[in-house]
């Protein structure tokens, strides 16, 4: 059948994970499935940087994806990185089956600010849509209101919209139809901006 599988790795805010799952289900109009939690990705820990290698988490995810799931999104609370960059919010295989999302930098507490639950959840939605968009082959969108716009800092992340623009939604619908065995999908777009 095909759909999006979601798994947490290590200790993760379970409510946030459920929220991300429902966001993907409604935004893409696609079946989602919650897998059993994965072990903490200690294998990806980099002592020198005090962060986790998102590339290694992705490699691990590739091996763990159930054959029936078209995509697997792994959610972690750890701060993740690629060697070139000081951090990433998430990483995906472009047009590939796996993506990873870190919740670490989506919390106000990370920046020494008081917690803000609604803001945190909106950020998680944006980044989940963004990374899953990459797995369906979407690249960054020039529409600053689109979830597929590149955000390199938290201000940019907050400035962009929490839906796909109509162009990205169309591309996504076509790509997801192919990837998910022709299942009829109703990818929601944020409308015309």
């Amino acid at each position: 059948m095909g759909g999006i599988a979601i798994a947490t790795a290590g200790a993760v805010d379970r409510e946030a994970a459920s929220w991300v799952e429902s966001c993907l289900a409604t935004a893409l109009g696609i079946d989602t499935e919650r897998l059993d939690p994965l072990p903490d990705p200690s294998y990806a820990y980099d002592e020198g940087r005090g962060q986790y290698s998102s590339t290694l988490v992705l490699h691990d995810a590739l091996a763990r994806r159930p054959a029936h799931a078209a995509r697997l999104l792994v959610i972690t609370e750890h701060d993740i990185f690629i060697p070139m960059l000081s951090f990433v919010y998430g990483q995906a295989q472009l047009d590939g089956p796996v993506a990873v999302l870190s919740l670490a930098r989506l919390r106000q507490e990370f920046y020494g600010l008081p917690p803000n639950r609604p803001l945190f959840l909106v950020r998680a939605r944006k980044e989940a849509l963004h990374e899953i968009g990459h797995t369906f082959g979407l690249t960054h969108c020039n529409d600053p209101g689109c979830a597929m716009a590149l955000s390199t800092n938290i201000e940019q992340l907050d400035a962009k919209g929490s839906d796909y623009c109509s162009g990205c939604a169309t591309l996504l619908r076509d790509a997801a139809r192919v990837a998910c065995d022709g299942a009829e999908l109703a990818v929601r777009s944020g409308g015309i901006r």
Partner: protein
Amino acid sequence: MKKHWEVLVVDDEPVMRESLAAWLAEDGYTVDTAESGREAVTRAAAKDYAIYFVDLKMPPGLDGIETMMEIRRLHADASVIIMTAYATVDTAITAMKEGAQEYIVKPCNPEEISLLVGRIIKVKNLQRENLILRKKLAKQYSFHDILSKNPKMIEIFDLVREIASLRSTVLIQGGSGTGKELVARAIHFSGDRASKPFVAVSCAALAENLLESELFGHERGAFTGAVERKRGKFEMADGGTLLLDEIGDISPKLQVDLLRVLQERKFFRVGGNEEISVDVRVIAASRVNLQEAVAAGTFRDDLFYRLNVINIHLPSLRERREDIPLLASAFVERLSHELGKAASELSEGALRVLVDHDWPGNVRELENAVERALVTSKGHVLDEDDFAFLRREAGHGNGWAAPDNMSLDEIERQVIMATLNRTAGNVKEAAAALGIDRSTLYDRMKRYGMSRTGVE
């Protein structure tokens, strides 16, 4: 827009290489990777990338700097970003000296790399757009290698099309370097003689008897040195077009001979008695005003009327300043290629200098100026400093130019003397004019042995 740009990531460390490549691919670039300097150079030889990310520290053989230099040997204006974890000042300086566009220390902020890449791509986009625009303009405004959007020139293009297939003689007048020969060629090559020869002779270059044999040919033994029979330009141009450039310079005797050929389309070779007939369209060109030469009695009026059946007067470059950017860009494009220079653009400032210049030598002078600027240029853009020689040559009223073999002391001595002469020996005024104080001027005067009147 960025989706069409290709980048190359060069790093021997797999995770580093693949994760950066993936990040760039998500941003919409087409990414290739290379795990060694060798492989990078091979890939660069196959195609030029918009950006090269090159890791500084790679195994012996080809390190980052050497790889960059090899890439630049292939593509002089390649944008190379050197990546390093070793932020030592030394390597940074070396990289910049060798021409690294940018230098980033890993790990870097996502914002930083995104801005850097965006900046480089913006420049690349601009260059690409300019190139497309230039090509479009060049096509739109070009007529047989002549570029213009000036109304007078466009009228000339229309006239040329109209008269191209006639046999009437044409007289093209205009200052030197205005493109008289190009117009003559345009007439020939847009008419039905295009497949026949186009022959050009400069009448200024040759003495009377040489020109005579050049035009009409000679028989063997016609004069000392005529060891063989030789065909003249009229015969060579049979069926086609003959351009007689600088017609105003021909002697009275040749004027008569020419008049006869134009009337009868027949002539004799020098020293020959066989009459030769030809079908040649004659185009004459002159930088001197032939009407005035007729009035002054140095040019036959009957020949003038024979030549002046169709008259084309080419405007000076001063009269078509709007063409200067178009022409200058076309010259930069062609000459930078011929001279193997990286420069492909003119800065706003450079264009201003060119548009403001008076161009006594017209389009040819502009072409020479662009060539001269290119020869000494280093960067990708020619700016006003590259054309500083124009300002010097234009002079400031008295046409001052740096004299050969004159020491700075000697120049200073002469300037002080001239200033004192002008102020009639008034040291206070002279010092003010020279922008130095009085005691300094006294010192110099003493050093050069001058009195107040400026005379020794």
